[in-house]
């Protein structure tokens, strides 16, 4: 067992360059994203105009909650305590990992089963637990595949989206035995056979585990209820069978009431898996005597979120409900896959969330806001109307004002000088007209990134304005 990490990966343009050349991954991604797109379009389309109303309501609930987050967080804490749970506050990943490690150690156990959770991926909880001698078993099928394969998640909803079933078969045959029940001999790559192998492998863990770790899709402030939506039933197993349940939840996951939750129960399944309703929705409120885990801990995670909240443009990223619709529609994600983004949050939402949560001190984080052609498809499908292109441009402004490459700064300054007066533009156009025969097919420097794969247009003899002025003079 070794721990994979995104640390030290190359910046997006470099990682993306090798990713687009991987034809097997591109084939897998094209097929998967287009299938989910089709399903989403169908279940969103059937709602007609209601969809835009739901979307506006989802946006409004999240915006309101984030504006009064201090109030709702304290309310949630009070509700969870009243229901018999314990609430912990974690300012960053290290604090959250330390809290969870301590809680697991207190139980005397050395293993935990996990419900799929982005928050625990974000803080790399599994690595922290491993360092403390605790084994964390992922029980979501795709997370299991990634964990067994010593790989990294490449999608928020479908972490193993980059893998085809033949590759999954190999991973199962090769690795399951190291972790528990081995894959059956003669395992085929039939999806049913693969699911059955995972089911048998996991069943033993569910029945054995005394501690579970989860995240939550939503936390209802006024009742203290946590909510997980899932498809496989593994979450239900983890949330009900163990004696101790520890839930690590980002502070932005709050909704005020159950009637607010209703809006998201319609938005999330349709946007994520393209279903009217997901197969399993589990809700739990503190501790219920004689039923389910008798020891419940909620770890509320900041890890950069209050910094994001302070940015008036960027804060809309905190509305995200992790549905992945923006990944599935994104033409860039479709061609690079998730690993190129160097974060557990890939795709358009990752490009605005990661640099805001982590800050932009590294070249890799500064490259993310540029990992988009600003085509706007992500904004169109976002169920909580996050204007991702707007935030991308906003983050680019932060990069440009500090760490922009010199070549780019020179280009922008040069362009501004030319566009600063129509006389300068006219002069530049006339010079280009004179030089037109001497432009090589392959250009040096930044322009070479264009001519590597594309021809440049023929430069015309005269600009439009020259033609216009001559026409006016001739009248």
């Amino acid at each position, binding site marked *: 067992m070794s721990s994979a990490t995104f640390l030290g990966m190359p910046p997006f343009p470099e990682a993306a360059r090798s990713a687009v050349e991987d034809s097997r991954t591109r084939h897998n991604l094209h097929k998967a994203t287009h299938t989910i797109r089709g399903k989403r379009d169908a279940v969103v389309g059937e709602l007609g105009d209601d969809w835009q109303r739901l979307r506006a309501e989802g946006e409004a609930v999240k915006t309101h909650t984030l504006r009064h987050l201090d109030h709702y967080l304290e309310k949630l804490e009070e509700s969870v305590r009243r229901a018999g749970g314990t609430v912990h506050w974690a300012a960053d990943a290290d604090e959250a990992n330390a809290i969870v490690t301590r809680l697991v150690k207190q139980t005397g156990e050395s293993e935990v089963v996990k419900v799929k959770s982005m928050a625990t991926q974000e803080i790399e909880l599994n690595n922290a637990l491993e360092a403390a001698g605790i084994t964390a078993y992922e029980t979501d099928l795709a997370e299991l595949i990634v964990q067994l394969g010593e790989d990294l998640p490449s999608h928020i909803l479908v972490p193993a989206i980059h893998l085809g079933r033949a590759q999954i078969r190999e991973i199962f045959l090769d690795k399951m035995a190291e972790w528990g029940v081995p894959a059956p001999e003669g395992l085929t790559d039939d999806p049913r056979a693969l699911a059955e192998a995972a089911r048998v492998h996991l069943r033993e863990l569910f029945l054995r585990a005394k501690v579970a770790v989860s995240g939550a899709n939503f936390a209802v402030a006024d009742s203290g209820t946590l909510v997980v939506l899932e498809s496989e039933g593994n979450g239900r197993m983890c949330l009900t069978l163990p004696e101790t349940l520890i839930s690590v939840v980002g502070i932005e996951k709050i909704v005020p009431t159950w009637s607010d939750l209703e809006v998201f129960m319609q938005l999330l399944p349709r946007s994520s898996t393209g279903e009217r309703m997901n197969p399993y929705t589990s809700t739990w409120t503190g501790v219920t005597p004689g039923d389910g885990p008798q020891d419940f801990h909620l770890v509320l995670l900041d890890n950069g979120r209050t910094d994001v909240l302070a940015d008036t443009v960027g804060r809309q990223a905190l509305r995200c409900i992790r549905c992945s619709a923006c990944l599935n529609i994104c033409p860039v994600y479709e061609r690079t896959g998730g690993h190129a983004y160097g974060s557990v949050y890939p795709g358009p939402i990752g490009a605005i969330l990661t640099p805001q949560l982590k800050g932009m001190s590294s070249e890799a984080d500064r490259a993310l806001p*540029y990992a988009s052609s600003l*085509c706007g498809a992500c904004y169109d499908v976002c169920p909580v109307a996050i204007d991702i292109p707007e935030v991308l441009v906003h983050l680019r402004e932060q990069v440009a*004002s500090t760490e922009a490459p010199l070549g*780019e700064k020179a280009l922008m*300054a040069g362009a*501004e000088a030319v566009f*600063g007066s129509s006389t300068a533009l006219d002069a530049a156009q006339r010079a280009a007209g004179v030089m037109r025969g001497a432009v090589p097919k392959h250009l040096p420097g930044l322009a070479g990134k264009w001519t590597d*794969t594309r021809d440049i247009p023929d430069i015309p003899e005269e600009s439009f304005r020259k033609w216009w*002025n001559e026409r006016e003079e001739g009248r």
Partner: protein
Amino acid sequence: MRIALFITCVNDTLFPDTGRAVVRLLERLGHEVVFPTGQTCCGQMHYNTGYRRPAARLAVRFVQTFEGADAVVVPSASCAAMIREHYPKLGRTGSRLSRRMADLGPRVYDLTEFLVDVLQVTDVGAYYPHKVVYHPTCHGLRFLGLGDRPYRLLRAVRGLELLELPGATECCGFGGTFAVKNGAVSAAMGFDKARHAVGTGAEVLCAVDNSCLMHIGGTLSRQRSGLRITHIAEILASTEKEYATT
């Protein structure tokens, strides 16, 4: 009607034929076209790359140049979207500048919008005997919401056979400085767009944005595909009479 033409820096410098076509078309439809010569660039490249202040300075120049116009026609959906969607955000909220920008915005039109919505014409009397595919560029499709306007204009062109472009709503991969900052991804997107277009058997690919067409066309030309690109204005300006002479 007196129409102010904002040609855009890309068309002015690299695609003057598009500008000449717009003038020919609008004059043929009986309107007067003026070209305020102080115009340069809308500032979109600066804005999208994160250079907000130079973009704001270019926005001020644009507003000063076009403020008096009844209607400003732009043969580029992305520049029209820049002016309409982003200019009002460039001035300080509530400032005189942002009010002036918000005031001018509704009078700025992409060419196809202007024809269909303002002049209320879909049959512009054009003749273009070719198999054509239309690529709806992202700013036209998602930011301006051009919808079926370009298709209605093209379907009314005599001799033109409009073919369906698979994956039409997907970005071509140009994206301004994205084309060089993430050249490999941009090229991969461009290849797919080119492949879809070539697969239709069309002779000509048209769009409302020459910048996207420059990217797709550069890809098609490097592949020696034989498929040509042209701005929709050049198709709409073409007539039987003029066709014979060009």
